């Protein structure tokens, strides 16, 4: 259920590395907790972010959540489809619900992210 090829943060963001670029989104757990997503504030292209800094904002019916950068880098693409149809994140959080693409400045930061098994254990532990 939790894609094996991705890496995860404690804040429920996922990363897919494609060379020196990282595709970023939020996990199925995150979208399910939030409920129907109604608005996404995408980052600006060329925005520089440090790991764990604010990257984007996702709003659901009742509340807003900040999305944090899993890795440091520069934003090179955003998923504009989310502007008109933010619910895509609920429907396909690992796929067409991707939020943005970042050109990574410090690839070693990947070591601080969880793999699928670790994220699964993390979820089980936090549900106790």
């Amino acid at each position: 259920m939790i894609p094996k090829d991705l890496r995860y943060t404690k804040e429920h963001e996922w990363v897919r590395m494609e060379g020196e670029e990282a595709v970023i989104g939020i996990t199925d757990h995150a979208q399910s907790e939030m409920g129907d997503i109604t608005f996404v504030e995408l980052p600006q292209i060329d925005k520089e972010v440090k790991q764990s800094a604010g990257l984007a904002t996702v709003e659901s019916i009742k509340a807003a959540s900040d999305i944090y950068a899993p890795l440091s880098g520069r934003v090179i693409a955003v998923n504009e489809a989310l502007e008109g149809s933010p619910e895509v994140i609920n429907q396909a959080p690992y796929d067409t619900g991707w939020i943005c693409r970042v050109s990574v400045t410090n690839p070693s930061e990947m070591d601080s992210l969880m793999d699928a098994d670790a994220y699964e254990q993390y979820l089980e532990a936090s549900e106790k």
Partner: protein
Amino acid sequence: MPINDLKKTPLYEEHLKLNAKMVPFAGWLMPLQYTGIIDEHMHAREKAGLFDIFHMGELFLRGPAAAKDVAGLVTCRIYDMHPGRCRYGFMLNDKGGIIDDLIVFRISEEEFMIVVNAGTVGKDEAWMRKHISPGTELANESAETAKIDIQGPLSGKIMGDLAGQQAVEQVRKYHFLNVEISGMPVLLSRTGYTGELGYELFFPVEYAPDMWKLLLAQEGVKPVGLGARDTLRMEMGYSLYGNDIDEKHTPLEANLARFVFFEKDFLGKPALLKQQGKGVSRVLKGFICDSRRSARSHFKVTSGGKEIGEVTSGAFSPCLKRGMGLCYIDSGSAKEGTGVTLTDGKVEVAARVAAIPLYRHKTQDPRHRTGKKS
């Protein structure tokens, strides 16, 4: 409050079977959503949604002086209420502030049912007890009375199939009738909190699971939780007690003077008259955001950098596909169409003051053009 202290409605197990996400509300463990708030919201607007509303309170006043007592307690017009009629109104404190919003049902010449909010039943009962005549019986029958709402364009046909078409056609807006559904006695009222054609069913608590299952089995019916109940009422501009109205706000400030009948005495009237003379500085108005971004309760309303009000309810409108809500705003800036900026200090949301209902439905209950009427 610890989860074990929360009260469960008779339909708790049913909600779990339907995979509801349960949340605390007013001391109860209630279904927030089943399939998703937007899905349930649209289902209530297009077909028929079913709501477990057991948590609301039902207070009965009986006796030869009950009518006089009720008239003194609430802002609604009582003297010309015939049995089978119900009206929306308020109980006010000495400052004209709203103790609760409620609906008064005249069951007979000497019997009234007053339906109140879940979080305020105790407060309301104590207030009533202080002010009724010695001969009037006041009974809190909330624990014995189940309430299920069915709301949506299909609800008329569904209730007609279950209670008899002729009977249901008799029930006009803000009226009610005693019917029988599969041998179960029901007070069926044409009232609701969504703006759609709909009914509220009051009946003995022991029938709750059977009634719920029977209604859910009808074609076009889906369960709807409190999340969608909130977005549905907000699109109509209906106030939620505790958010938009409370003891610190009067019906005049809440723009609900039409539910106050001034040609009689009632608790809180002198304060209201005084306020009528002076005018209100801030008034409750609707707003629609320019984008999908929502503003939330406690966001400030600003114009030209100056604070001119505060948001009391805010959410995403599934029908408008924009942010929406209600706010108190300086009377001078309250004109519909006025552009404002809603902000929590970090996020800024552009919006416009708007008339309620915020969403106008083409199949909307035809007698319901301007909100609940007394």
